[in-house]
Structure formats: structure tokens, C-alpha cells
């Protein structure tokens, strides 16, 4: 079997390791090295850890799951056909949909489409269940509100033009290709 067993070794108790001064000096050495390294990066403008949110923002990978939003087609209508799959797949029951019908080409649309953002856990199952690519996880993460009522997002708040969601849609096509 390639999985072996090793016994961890304690570092030997040398005279020097019982002297706090040596430890302090060694610790200072390590932290000064880090300090100089960071200073150098700072001088070059390449600091890689501290991000001054909200002026600076991290570059998020395409896989990022922010809050779920509805895709708005070019004609201003939503792509959703109110089939209710996302409502069913949602583990926390935070979507509520009331369907309605029109005489347009796509006959069904959601008259009400509410997402309770205080319950949503950004799991992405609604997006995965949707047979129309009508609900996708956006990059929006700032969803705080001043009142509880404010965390109930209605259809008008959720609609995002399809052009803005291109990265995510491309990612989705690749991710769920197989």
C-alpha cells in the first residue's frame, strides 16, 4: 500500500530553544522579512492581499455565485416562463411565483416573481434547475437593506439585461455541457 505511516518528530530540546531571547530574535527575523517583502510590493504597487473595498474590487472567477437574478431579453421582457422549477428546487423555499398568460409568442410569464434574499443561500440550484436559462447567479453581492421588507426582491428589481450576464451564461453553457 502506498499509504505509509510516519511518526512526527519533536524538535530536539536544545539549549537555545529554551532561551526566549533566541525565539524572539528568530520571530523578529521572520516578521521583518515579511514586512520588507510587503513594503517592496507596496512600493511597486503590487500588493496582493489588502483590497480597499469598495474602491477596489477583487476580480472574481466566472464560477462566482452571487445573488440570483432574472434574465431580461432584448425586448425588455423576462425570459422566464413561470414553470416553477426553481421554486421546487430551492432548498430554502425562498422563491414565490404566480404565473399568468398573455397572447405573445411566449404565452406564459410570471406575474409575480419574488425572492426572499434573507433566506436565499446562494446555492445555485435554481439556476441549475431552470430549463430556460432564465434565472442565473449574478455577481451582485450587496443585498443589505434597511428593513426586513427590503430583502424581498420583486420581479422588477431582479431583471438584468442579458448583455450584462454574458460571462455567467457562457460559464453555465460550459459547466453543464455534459
Amino acid at each position, binding site marked *: *500500500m*502506498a*499509504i*505509509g*505511516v*510516519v*511518526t*512526527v*518528530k*519533536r*524538535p530536539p*530540546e536544545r539549549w537555545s*530553544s*529554551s*532561551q*526566549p531571547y533566541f*525565539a524572539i530574535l*528568530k*520571530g523578529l527575523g*521572520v*516578521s521583518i522579512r*515579511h514586512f520588507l517583502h510587503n513594503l517592496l510590493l507596496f512600493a511597486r504597487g503590487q500588493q496582493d*492581499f489588502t483590497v480597499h473595498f469598495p474602491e477596489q474590487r477583487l476580480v*472574481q*472567477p*466566472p*464560477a*462566482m*455565485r452571487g445573488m440570483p437574478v432574472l434574465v431580461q431579453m432584448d425586448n425588455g421582457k423576462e425570459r422566464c416562463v413561470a414553470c416553477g*422549477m426553481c421554486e*421546487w*428546487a430551492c*432548498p430554502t423555499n425562498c422563491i414565490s411565483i404566480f404565473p399568468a398568460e398573455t397572447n405573445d409568442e411566449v404565452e406564459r410569464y410570471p406575474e409575480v416573481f419574488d425572492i426572499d434574499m434573507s433566506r436565499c*443561500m*446562494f*446555492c*445555485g*440550484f435554481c439556476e*441549475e*434547475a431552470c*430549463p*430556460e*436559462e432564465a434565472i442565473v*447567479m449574478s455577481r451582485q453581492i450587496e443585498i443589505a437593506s434597511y428593513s426586513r421588507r427590503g430583502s424581498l426582491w420583486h420581479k422588477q428589481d431582479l431583471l438584468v439585461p442579458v448583455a450584462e450576464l454574458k460571462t455567467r451564461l457562457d460559464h*453555465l*453553457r*460550459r*459547466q*453543464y*455541457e*455534459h
Partner: protein
Amino acid sequence: MSDLVQKNRVAPNNQRGPAARRADFDDLHTEPMHIQMGPSHPAMHGTVKIELDLEGEEVIDADVQIGYLHRGFEKECETGFLYQNIPYTDRLNYSSPVLNNVGYCLAVEKLFGITTPPRCQFIRVIGGELSRMADHMLALGASAMELAAFTPMLYLLEARELLLDQIDAICGARVTTNFTRIGGTLDLPEGFAAFAVERLDRALRLTADADKLLTDNPIFRERMQGTGRMAGKDLLAWGVTGPVLRAGGVPYDVRRATPYLIYGDLDFDIPIGEHGDNFDRYLVRMEEIRQSCRIVKQCLERLPDGPVNSDDRRVKWPPKRKVFGQMEELIDQFKLVLEGGYPPAGEVYHAVEGANGEVGFYIVSDGSGRAWKMRCRSPSFSNMSPLKHMLIGGQLADVVPTFGMMNMIGGECDR
């Protein structure tokens, strides 16, 4: 130093029970001090309360009270479809969520009788090991910080960020990962291997710095060596698993005992300790970080091509492209979302090696899309039960390193 340690640590009345200790106080017309440590104490990083009886600085009785984070995971899982429970498992051990995802999905797949394709297994191992490293880093950093060593905590958290970046690139979230699906997983993004190796190396360098600051430090060693000691035999009897058991010298690791996924083909070592005290637990965790790094690098080298989802139509959601265009796949999708896939009736238990020990999922199915009974065997819960016996006889100051090295995660312990 060792003389000092011996003098301070081994309490003379160690072997006597609490009742006998209490009797001493009757003569003195005094009583032991009763203090409540937690639930919102800075060193209790899971929410837990420890009621301590002290004689001077020495702990003569302790009672560990948990349950502050009980959220009814099992009840919730009995009312949701099998696939809907995957995000809930993130919230069990929230410092290594991928391991829980993998464990849960493996249990469900065992129930269905599915084997996943090799690429999926590799990706699961990569995600799981990254998560394990992140968990150990948090555990070591937090306990070092509780012992007033603040700098290693910063380095280890920085290293942890580098690992979470990789998990983020795969699944789109750092903590609430939702990494696996039943019968599959999310695929790696393009150019992941180079990205991962660069970040792993940086993370290892940072860990080495923290190692340099801590391992040879006399203050740290004096607080860790010889405290919270428990022999391997007792640890086994108390049901302890994971790094804590291995530090006691028992080489029990689920990856080695009953290999799952591709662990049987990989080349790595299980670190064990000799003394069963806190310092060994620390060293075992440090070594596990390095071993996990080895595993991830091997997996990245040997990563095969191919699908990441199994073809089993009982669980696999059809590809999106076909759902848009074809009737059969659309119906499949509707059935799977609305009914959750029907497993055979039966019961399975599947265990994986979590960051703190054996994470097992026990599923009893009645043949419907929901589990009749879902049980998570959580390592933190079992590991916490002998904590009382590790604390009694020690000093009040030993409570903090012992508790830190047990690495109790509230979400996993209370579920």
C-alpha cells in the same frame, strides 16, 4: 525546560476523584470556585460552555455543554430531496465544507449503487484535500492566537486565503461551496493546474514561516507539551478519531483503513504522534498540511480527461443544451427536480476522513426521493465527549490549548 514542565503540569492529586478533592475544602471552610467559560468566550471558537470547578488554578471538575448551534440538520434533511441537502452539509464543518459535500454525495451514491468517473474522483480529492489544509490552518492559527501568538495566525490565514481562492475558482464560493452533485461534481476551470501549484507553493511557504515561529518557541512548547494528555487506548474507547487519535499513536485514518475514491492509488503518509498531548496534535496537523499538499500535486499531475458526471439517469440532471431543445431531456429534468430521483429502499453508512476525524453519513431510504432517516456521524461531537477527562487535573490555562487542539467546530458538533 522539561523539568519545569514536569513540575508544573503533573498535578500531585491527579488520580483522586472530584469528591475527594472537594472533601479537602470542608476543613478549610471554603469551596471550589465555579466559573462558566463560554459560550461567548474568545477562546471558545465553537459556541460551547465549559463549567469549571477550580481549586486555585487547578481544574477539579468540568462539564462541557454543547447545543448552542443546534439547527436540526437531520430533521431538515428528512424533509428535503436528496439533492437539496448538499448545501446543508456545507454548514456542518464550515471550515472544511468540501469534505462534507464529498462524504454526503458518496453516501448517496452508495445507496444508488453508482460509481463516478475517474475525473470526478480526482476533482473531489483535490477539493477535499484543499479543504482539509484550510481547516488545519485555521485550527492551528486560531489556537496559536489564543496562546497570544498573533503573527502565525496572520500568516496561516493568508495561506488559507490562497487555498480558498482555488476552491472559489472551481465552485464559485469560498465557504458555502456546494461543490459536488449526486453522481458528479463541478469541473475544473481552464488553466487550473498552474494556478493551483503556484498558490500551493506560496501557501506552503507561509505555513513554513508559521512553523518556524511556533514549533521551536519555548513559550508555545511549554504550554502545549504534556497538556491535555490522553493515551491512544482511552481515546479509542471514547470514540475519538482524526488528528487527535493519531497524535495518540493509533494510525486510524479512513483514507487508509477503508480507502474510498482514489486514495488507495495515491502516495502519501499518515502522521502519528507518540505522546498524545497537545504538542503532538499540533505536529500531526502541521504534517498533514504537507501531506495533503503532496496529494493535491499528485492529483493535478495525474488528472485524467473525460466526463465529470456519471451517466446514471436516476440522478444525473441532463445537459442544459439538450434540456433547451429536446422533449425527453426536458421531461427528465422535470422529473428529477420535482421528485428527486428514486433510490432503492435500504440503508447505507459511508464514512470519509474529515478534517477532525471520521465524517459518516447514515441514510435510511424508504424508496422515495427523500431520506427516511439521515444521520451525520460528526467527529467533533465524539471528540468533545472525553474533553472533560483531559481537563481535570490540569491547570486553568491548559483549558485553552486543549480546547483549541480538539478543534471543535460548532456547526459539526451540534448539527
